[in-house]
């Protein structure tokens, strides 16, 4: 593959559509006869619905129907055997309320405003029961399911015997994804067993599969469109009850129905990063070699689903350490189910591990960067495998240089500028570099244009742009003549966009389908083209969109000339692609380092991040521009996690008190400092044809610790409860 398009900056292929309003998001679609829905949600947190009176609502102008457990069509895929309580929330199935904000009815009307008004007319009576929403008050309910295995390498709690130790507890609150675009769906039953959806999703095929099993209709009868997604960060990785509710309403009413939920409902209906309490024990020798890591994590989940993620994962392999043990438990609370949020469990775990590493470095009187270098894992100590590629040391070096790490003082509070305390902090991040299975179809037309289709998603990173670049490299065709189409369930299979694996997985399928297409061209050439008919397929080289005879460089012909010469309007190929044996021989991870320089105002506790340097070891970078944007986006998310974001519950009521954009503080532009992103940009030799690992998650993982470590460096105060708001530092400043 000759690189002509990758490892370069390329503007987004759909950038113009996005900034001119030409991109159609799910809610922009308007099937004929569409009605509008709004949800009636429970104001109680646990109990039963005694009665739903819909008379007033049904008499309100424009209202078509009010659908609830009293009249909803059955969902054939819901299990009626209730012996296992962990079946997910079966929407409109019975009278049970498990969490505040749970939908109890959906109102459908001819306008959005009328639907919203009619919601206020639905009278629901409840029988309230005792609820639990506070993790701290319910730790006695912590449990492990059969998939949550304790991990032990070497000796349990070996850290306790070490000459230098740290033991600390770290807490993260509930964080809500809060993408700009609200959750929702447009559902239309074209026939009683054919469903068309305009969805907000990170995977059209995944939606199709879930609904196939819920409604027990053939896969090909479910059409899912999701060409553009206005941000998701993980919340659109699954189908939620809100979508099933809309599909049920559409089924009952037999018209297209659109639901867009409210910002308040985003806090209770579309997942969140679970609150977690983590205890870490670290032990090291006097010269700074780790001898023991113990990591206990407890996180929250809903009463009806066990949501698990890799909170303790990083502690097992990030550092060379003979003795590691981890545990992970869940506390079920009367809340909706959490879901992966950017960086998922690793971001939670990295905050604890990378904060504790900083704490131990101080005890050892060692530069925290030097401490990490002394414990660098050259091979994966968990899997006992070599890393497929790891340039973390280079990343540390680049980051340290670019932030000016040499200006950092070990002694906290020594540096001041502009009446502010100055702190430097750093952390590492890592996330598995996956490669799943995907398929793609490529059509080359006689006019020389290439169109590739795959049911991939783009929640913002610029999937189509990267795929066009990969296809341009694979074929030599000018990127301007290549289109990559995604977000349709009718396209060849692709997994959900999650876990930083789209480029790796779908990019491999694109490479393979381009190769398959070129093979077809070669076959056509040797069988039908006068210049090539004396040659074997293996004698043909593909270069710059042309076929070349390996033996005679004067024989070269553009791809489309083969089609024109043989009077073919187009040729096409389909290919599937997935990883193989290499995944058993190597350990695949992306790595990142984050460095921050911060100011802390000593009298108000206000923190301002002044400079961020993030460096990613993510293999070959396909598009330097969109990748840098993705890294900056991760930093912004990390700033929110570190300093501002917390969904606050009033446990007496089980309700959130800051469920809006004004009070739930997503960072604004003024919170985001100059952010310099660097890529190691060295090919991973084993992961996929491009050599690209992922970077969506590592952009955020570890970042919060880079901030809290800088806060300690500035103030000598260790804040172990996120977010680090001014009140947590105020009055704690060292004199």
């Amino acid at each position: 593959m000759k690189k002509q398009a990758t490892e370069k900056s390329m503007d987004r292929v759909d950038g113009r559509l996005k900034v001119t309003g030409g991109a159609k998001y799910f809610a922009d679609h308007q099937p004929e006869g569409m009605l509008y829905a709004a949800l009636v949600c429970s104001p109680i947190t646990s109990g039963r619905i005694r009665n739903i009176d819909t008379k007033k609502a049904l008499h309100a102008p424009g209202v078509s129907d009010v659908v609830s457990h009293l009249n909803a069509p059955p969902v054939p895929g819901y299990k009626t055997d209730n012996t296992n309580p962990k079946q997910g929330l079966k929407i409109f199935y019975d009278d049970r309320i498990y969490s505040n904000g749970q939908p109890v009815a959906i109102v459908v009307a001819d306008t959005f405003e009328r639907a919203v008004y009619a919601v206020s007319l639905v009278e629901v009576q409840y029988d309230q029961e005792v609820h639990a929403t506070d993790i701290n008050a319910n730790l006695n309910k912590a449990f492990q399911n059969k998939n949550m295995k304790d991990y032990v390498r070497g000796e349990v709690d070996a850290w306790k015997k070490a000459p230098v130790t740290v033991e600390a507890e770290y807490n993260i609150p509930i964080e809500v994804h809060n993408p700009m675009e609200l959750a929702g769906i447009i559902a239309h039953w074209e026939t009683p067993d054919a469903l068309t959806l305009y969805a907000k999703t990170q995977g059209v095929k995944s939606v199709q599969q879930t609904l196939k099993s819920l409604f027990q209709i053939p896969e090909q009868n479910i059409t899912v469109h999701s060409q553009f997604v206005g941000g998701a960060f993980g919340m659109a990785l699954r189908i939620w009850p809100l979508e099933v509710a809309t599909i049920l309403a559409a089924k009952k009413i037999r018209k297209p129905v659109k639901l867009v939920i409210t910002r308040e409902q985003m806090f209770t209906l579309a997942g969140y990063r679970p609150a977690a309490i983590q205890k870490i024990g670290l032990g090291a020798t006097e010269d700074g070699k780790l001898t023991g890591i113990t990591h206990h994590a407890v996180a929250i989940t809903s009463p009806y689903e066990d949501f698990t993620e890799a909170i303790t994962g990083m502690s097992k392999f990030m550092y060379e350490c003979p003795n590691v043990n981890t545990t992970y438990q869940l506390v079920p609370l009367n809340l909706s189910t959490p879901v992966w949020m950017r960086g998922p469990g690793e971001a939670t775990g990295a905050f604890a591990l990378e904060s504790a590493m900083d704490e131990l470095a101080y005890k050892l009187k060692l530069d925290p960067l030097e401490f990490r270098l002394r414990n660098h894992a050259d091979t994966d100590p968990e899997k006992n495998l070599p890393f497929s590629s790891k340039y973390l040391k280079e990343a540390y070096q680049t980051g340290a240089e670019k932030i000016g790490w040499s200006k950092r003082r070990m002694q906290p509070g020594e540096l001041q500028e502009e009446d502010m305390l100055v702190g430097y902090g750093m952390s590492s991040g890592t996330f598995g570099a996956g490669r799943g299975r995907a398929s793609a179809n490529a059509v080359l037309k006689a006019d020389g244009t290439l169109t590739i289709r795959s049911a991939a998603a783009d929640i913002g990173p610029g999937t189509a742009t990267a795929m066009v670049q990969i296809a341009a490299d694979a074929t030599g065709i000018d990127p301007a003549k290549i289109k990559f189409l995604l977000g349709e369930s009718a396209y060849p299979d692709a997994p959900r966009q999650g876990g930083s694996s789209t480029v790796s997985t779908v990019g491999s399928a694109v490479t393979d389908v381009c190769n398959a297409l070129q093979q077809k061209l070669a076959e056509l050439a040797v069988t039908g083209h006068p210049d090539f008919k004396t040659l074997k397929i293996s004698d043909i080289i593909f270069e710059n969109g042309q076929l070349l005879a390996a033996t005679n460089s004067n024989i070269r012909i553009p791809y489309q000339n083969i089609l024109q010469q043989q009077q073919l309007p187009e040729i096409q190929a389909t290919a599937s692609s997935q990883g193989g044996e290499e995944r058993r021989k190597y350990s695949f991870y992306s790595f990142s380092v984050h460095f921050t320089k911060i100011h802390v105002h000593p009298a108000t506790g206000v923190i301002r991040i002044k400079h961020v340097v993030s460096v990613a070891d993510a293999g070959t970078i396909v598009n330097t521009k969109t990748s840098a944007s993705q890294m900056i986006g991760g930093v912004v998310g990390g700033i929110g996690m570190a300093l501002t974001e917390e969904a606050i519950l009033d446990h007496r009521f089980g309700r959130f008190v800051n469920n809006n954009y004004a009070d739930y503080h997503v960072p604004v532009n003024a919170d985001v400092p100059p952010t310099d992103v660097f890529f190691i940009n060295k090919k991973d030799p084993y992961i996929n044809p491009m050599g690209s690992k992922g970077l969506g998650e590592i952009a955020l993982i570890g970042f919060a610790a880079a901030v809290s470590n800088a806060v300690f460096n500035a103030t000598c105060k260790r804040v172990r409860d996120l977010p680090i708001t001014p009140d947590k530092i105020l009055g704690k400043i060292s004199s």
Partner: protein
Amino acid sequence: MNQFTYIRPSNQQAAIDAVSKDAQARFIAGGTNLLDLMKSGVIAPEKLVDINRLPLKEIQLNGNILHIGALALNSDVAAHQQVKKNFPLLSQALLAGASQQLRNMATVGGNMMQRTRCGYFYDTAMPCNKRQPGSGCGAIGGINRMHAIFGASDQCIAVHPSDMCIALVALDATVLVSGPKGNRHIPFADFHRLPGNTPDKDNNLSKGELITAVELPTSPYQHHVHYLKVRDRASYAFALVSVAAALDLSNNTIRSARLAMGGVAHKPWRLYEAENALAGKTATEENFRIAANVAVQNAKPHKHNTFKVDLAVNSIIIALKKAATV
């Protein structure tokens, strides 16, 4: 949202009549808070009387009085040359509020009419004496990190959210009001109310009364001023505490001072005693600290906002230092 009718009268009397004669009618100007409240179901007016056509936008210095029409936009007031030159504290406070987009819509009168951002007030499923008298106060015993430390009652501990009003109360503004019974002037410090037993009443306007203007006397507080806002994020967040500080300095001696705080009370909180403690003193950090301690002596924090007392002290000192050294 409930159904409502909408009218747009072009003269002031018609607007006042429309609201004073209809119990369910409300004025609307920029709508930056009213529409939020309607969408949240906190209020459900049956009639909206849009006053944007009334000629109340002018900003003008008449002799010693700066006249700001009630419909002047927050962004226009903040950027006005005379405001920046003679009333820089007001400009600073305005720019600390909301976001540029909101300031472009929000009017001066509307800013004064903002209701609290207390989460219990906004959530109709929770108790709130301000929204529904007699239902209880959710914040007392609940989540009260953002709430009042001064002047609250056992009925309500909500805070007034405005920044602009903190500067106006410090600068001895007067509110011009027109109503069914004629015109009247209300000293700014008497415009908003403490919650007492009637937390549902934010201010002393009577039904149908319309704010037509705010007037500010020119004062010595044209140079040594500072508006400090401490908040959870760098922009677009309500104050944890804010301080409007203004000094009349002569050779580093404070002839007189004006101090007010936001984020701490149900109304813009003027610190008269602290002002008195500063008068005649030298502008030193020590004297600022004495005044700041005077300012918080009657503070009554709640479970989650005890930090506001120290933060108030520190913020007053910083604001005064900045004002003194401008």
